C-alpha cells in the first residue's frame, strides 16, 4: 500500500517575545491512499500546526518550518513555489475548518463560494460550475439543492454550513482532505451525520483523510490509523485498534481513561496525571475503579429547589403597532425538583433552552411566568435587595473560562469581590486570607492571587471561577456547560474537583451540558430537554439503560462510542 503523504522529521518554530518556541518537533507520519488518519491531541499539542504546515499556511513571520520534508505524491511540498502551491491547495489537498459560522463569507451565496474553486482549478464556465455545485450540495445532503445554492450562509443552520464547507472541500475531488476539528462546534446528532457523510464521500472518491480532533471518541468511529500528539511530539502511533486495545504510552492510556463513557459507571474519572508526570514519566496506575452506585434520596435530602411550570418566551415578530405576533418559547412550562446535596443533569442540544432555564433559575433572566421555590421561598417574588441577599446561596459557573473573568481584574480581586459585595470577612486581610484558602481548595497556589486572568490556562481559569462561586459559601451551584470548553483531560480534573467539593461542602448542583456521557457520569438525576420542554427525567443510570422518549434515544445513539467498530461486541 502506497502512502499519499509522508511527513518526515517536521519541525515548526514560532518566534515569540521569549525567543523561538518549537510548536512541533521532529514529527513523522504517513497517510496511506484511501485511508483515514486521526491526529489526536489537546489544545497546544501541535496538531493544527502540523496540518497547516502541509498546506503551507503557517503565518510567516512568526512561524516557519525549521526542517523536515512533506512528500505529497512523490514531491516535497516545502520546495514548491507559492504559485505552484496554490495549484495544490483547494485542488489536490483541501481543508475543512472547525467553525462553520465564520469560515463561509457572509456576503456571497453558498453557490458563489463553491463555484469559485471549480472555475479556478477545473477551468469550468459559470454554467457548468453551478450545475456541479448543485450536484455537490445534493451529495452532501442539502435538501432542495437547486434553490439552496442561491442561499446565503446566514440562512443555513450550523450543520448545513458544515455540509457546504465539505461540498467546497470536495468540489475539485481532492486526493487528501484535511478535516480540522470539523464537528467540535456541532451538536452530537449533527456530528454523527457529518462523520457519516465524510466516511461516505471518502469511499466514493477514494480520498485520504487527515482527521484532527481532541475527541478520542470521534477518532474511534472514523479513523483507520491514529497518531497521538503531546506538546509538539508524537508519543504514539498505530492502528486504531492497537491504540484503543493496547495503548503503550502513558499519555494515551490517560487520554482513553479520562473520557467518561456511557458503558461505564466510575465514581471518579482517572486523569492523565494519574498515568504520567508532567514531563512524561510513567506512573504505575493500578487503582481499581470504584463503581458509582445510584444514591437513593435520603430523608436528610429535602427538596432544595422546586421549579413550577416556568416559562420564558421571547418576542420574535412584532406587528406594526408593537403587538407581538410570534413568540420563541425558549423555556416552555418546565417543572423540576432538585434535592439537597444531589446533582440534576440538564441535557439537550443547542437551542433547547437549557441555558435560558439555568439563568432564569438565578433570575439573571426574568421568567415570563411560573414560580421558583428555593428552600421554600418563592424567589420570583423577591425584590432587588432580597434577591441580592439570595445570590449568596445560589451561584453559577459559566461555560467559557476565557470570557467569564474580567481581564482587567486580578484573580485575587475577582475572588474577593463577592465577599466585598456581601460584606463577608471583617477586613481586607481576612478577605485576602479567605481568597488564599479558596485557591488552595480548588488546587491553585495562593501566590498566584495577584496575577491577571490571561496568565492562566483554560482549566486554571475554570478553577478560579469555581473559587469565586465558592467565595460566598453557596449551597447551590449551576454549572452551565462548565467543562465543555476544556480539553478532555482537564475536563476530568474539573469534574473530579466538583465532586470532591460536593462531598466536602454538601453542595447541590444543576449541571447543564450537551454531552450526555459527561452528564451521566456527573449527575444523580438527568432531565432531557428538547424545544423548551423537559421530555424525560429519571435517574442517570436508567435513563441510559432504558430511554423512553424517542428524542432521548436519538441523542444516545448519536454519541460516539469511543470504541473502534472492529472492537464492538456485536461485530
Amino acid at each position, binding site marked *: 500500500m502506497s502512502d499519499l503523504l509522508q511527513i518526515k522529521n517536521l519541525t515548526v518554530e514560532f518566534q515569540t*517575545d521569549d525567543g523561538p518556541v518549537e510548536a512541533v518537533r521532529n514529527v513523522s507520519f504517513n497517510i496511506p491512499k484511501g485511508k483515514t488518519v486521526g491526529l489526536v491531541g489537546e489544545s497546544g499539542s501541535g496538531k493544527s500546526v502540523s496540518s497547516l504546515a502541509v498546506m503551507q499556511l503557517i503565518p510567516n513571520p512568526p512561524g516557519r518550518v525549521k526542517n523536515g520534508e512533506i512528500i505529497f505524491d512523490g514531491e516535497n511540498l516545502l520546495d514548491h513555489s507559492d504559485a505552484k502551491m496554490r495549484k495544490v491547495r483547494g485542488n489536490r489537498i483541501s481543508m475543512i475548518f472547525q467553525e462553520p459560522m465564520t469560515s463561509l463569507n457572509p456576503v456571497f451565496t453558498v453557490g458563489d463560494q463553491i463555484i469559485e474553486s471549480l472555475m479556478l482549478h477545473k477551468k469550468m464556465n459559470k454554467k457548468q460550475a453551478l450545475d456541479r455545485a448543485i450536484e455537490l450540495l445534493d451529495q452532501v445532503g442539502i435538501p432542495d439543492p437547486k434553490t439552496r445554492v442561491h442561499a446565503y450562509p446566514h440562512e443555513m443552520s450550523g450543520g448545513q454550513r458544515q455540509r457546504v464547507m465539505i461540498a467546497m472541500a470536495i468540489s475539485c475531488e481532492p486526493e487528501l482532505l484535511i478535516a480540522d476539528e470539523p464537528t467540535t462546534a456541532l451538536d452530537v446528532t449533527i456530528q454523527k451525520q457529518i462523520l457519516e457523510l465524510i466516511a461516505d464521500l471518502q469511499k466514493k472518491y477514494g480520498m485520504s483523510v487527515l482527521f484532527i480532533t481532541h475527541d478520542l471518541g470521534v477518532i474511534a468511529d472514523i479513523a483507520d490509523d491514529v497518531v497521538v500528539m503531546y506538546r509538539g511530539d508524537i508519543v504514539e502511533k498505530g492502528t486504531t485498534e492497537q491504540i484503543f486495545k493496547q495503548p503503550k504510552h502513558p499519555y494515551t492510556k490517560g487520554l482513553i481513561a479520562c473520557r467518561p463513557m456511557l458503558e461505564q459507571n466510575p465514581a471518579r474519572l482517572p486523569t492523565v496525571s494519574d498515568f504520567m508526570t508532567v514531563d512524561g514519566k510513567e506512573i504505575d496506575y493500578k487503582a481499581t475503579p470504584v463503581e458509582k452506585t445510584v444514591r437513593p434520596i435520603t430523608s436528610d435530602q429535602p427538596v432544595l429547589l422546586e421549579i413550577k411550570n416556568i416559562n420564558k418566551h421571547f418576542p420574535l415578530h412584532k406587528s406594526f403597532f408593537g403587538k407581538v405576533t410570534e413568540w420563541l418559547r425558549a423555556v416552555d412550562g418546565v417543572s423540576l425538583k432538585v434535592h439537597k446535596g444531589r446533582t440534576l443533569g440538564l441535557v439537550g442540544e443547542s437551542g433547547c433552552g437549557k441555558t435560558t432555564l439555568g439563568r432564569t433559575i438565578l433570575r439573571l433572566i426574568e421568567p415570563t411566568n411560573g414560580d421558583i421555590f428555593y428552600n421554600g421561598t418563592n424567589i420570583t417574588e423577591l425584590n432587588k435587595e432580597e434577591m441580592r441577599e439570595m445570590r449568596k446561596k445560589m451561584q453559577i459557573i459559566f461555560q467559557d473560562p476565557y470570557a467569564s473573568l474580567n481581564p482587567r481584574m486580578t484573580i485575587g480581586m475577582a475572588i474577593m*469581590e463577592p465577599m466585598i459585595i456581601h460584606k463577608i470577612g471583617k477586613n481586607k486581610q481576612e478577605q485576602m486570607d479567605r481568597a488564599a484558602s479558596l485557591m488552595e481548595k480548588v488546587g491553585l497556589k495562593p501566590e498566584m492571587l495577584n496575577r491577571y486572568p490571561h496568565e492562566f490556562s483554560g482549566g486554571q481559569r475554570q478553577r478560579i471561577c469555581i473559587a469565586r462561586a465558592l467565595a460566598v459559601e453557596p449551597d447551590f451551584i449551576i454549572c452551565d456547560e462548565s467543562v465543555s470548553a476544556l480539553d478532555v483531560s482537564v475536563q476530568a480534573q474539573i469534574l473530579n474537583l466538583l465532586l470532591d467539593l460536593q462531598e466536602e461542602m454538601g453542595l447541590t448542583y444543576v449541571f447543564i451540558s450537551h454531552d450526555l456521557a459527561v452528564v451521566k457520569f456527573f449527575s444523580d438525576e438527568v432531565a432531557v430537554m428538547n424545544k423548551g420542554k423537559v421530555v424525560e427525567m429519571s435517574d442517570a443510570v436508567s435513563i441510559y439503560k432504558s430511554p423512553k422518549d424517542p428524542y432521548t434515544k436519538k441523542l444516545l445513539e448519536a454519541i460516539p462510542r469511543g470504541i473502534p467498530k472492529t472492537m464492538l461486541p456485536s461485530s
Partner: protein
Amino acid sequence: MIRKSQNSLWNDAFQRLKKNKLSMVCLFIIIAYIILALGCKLGLFFPSFNETNNAISYQAPSAEHWFGTDFMGRDVMARAAHGTLTSLTVGLWGTGLAVIIGTLLGSLAGYFGKLVDEGIVWLYTTIDTIPYILLVSAFSLVLGPSLYTLCIAIGLTTWVGLCRVVRAEFIKHREKEYVQAASSIGASHARRIFTHILPNVFHIVLIQFSLGFVSTIKSEVILSFLGLGVEPGTPSWGVMINNAKQELARGVWWGLASATLLMFVLVLAFNLFNDALRDALDPKLKNKS
C-alpha cells in the same frame, strides 16, 4: 515562581509603547511643551510677554528678539510661548469635559439600553445636527469670549463622537459572561458599570482623549482666528495667525511663522504618538499569552 502583578494589561501596553522609538521622541516633545506651558503659567519663562513698546513695533528677528516683535512691540517668541499655555489649557479642559460627558452618557446609554438609550441617542443626534462652529459661537456670544467659555463650549459640543464609541462598547460588553458573572454574585449596576465594564473600555477613552486633544488645539486656533476664541489680549496662536492677515502685506512674516511652527510640531508629535498609543492599547494586536 512568585511574580508580582507587574504584567497587567496597562503595563504590557506601556512596554510595547516603549519599544517604539518614534513614539518616545514624540512623548518627549509633548512633555517639553507641557514644561514650557507650566513655566509660562508660573511666570518662570517670558514674564514680560505683555510688555508693549511702540518704538520697536514690527522689528525683524534679531539677537535681542529672536522671533522679532509685533505691532505693539511685544516679543513674538514670548507671545508664541504663552500661546502654548492657552492651547494646552483649552486642550486639557475642553477635551476633559467632553470625555467626562461622553463617557458617562455613553456608558449609561449602552449599559441600560431602552429608554435611557433612546433619550441619550436623541440628545447627541440633535447636537450633532447643529453645525459645530455655530454652536460654539452661540456659546461665546452668550457667555462672552474668554478662555473658560472656550473650554466649556468645546467640551459641550465635542463629546458626541466619544459617546457613540463608548455606547457601542458597552452594548458589546454588557452581554459578556464576566458581566453576567458579576451580576450573579449580586454586584450593583454602578459596580458593573464602573468596576467591571469601564476598565475594559478605558483604553478607547484614552485614545479618544488623545485624539480629541489635537482637534481641540486646532479648534482653539481656528476659533481665535475667527474672533470667537479667547478674549483680546490673551496670547494665542490663532490670534497671531489672524493678525498675520494685515502683517503679511507689509512683509512681516515672523508672527505667522512662529505660531505655525509651534503648532505644527505639537500636532505632529501628538498625531504620531496617538498612532503608537492606539497600536499599543489595541488588544487585537496583542499576541495571546
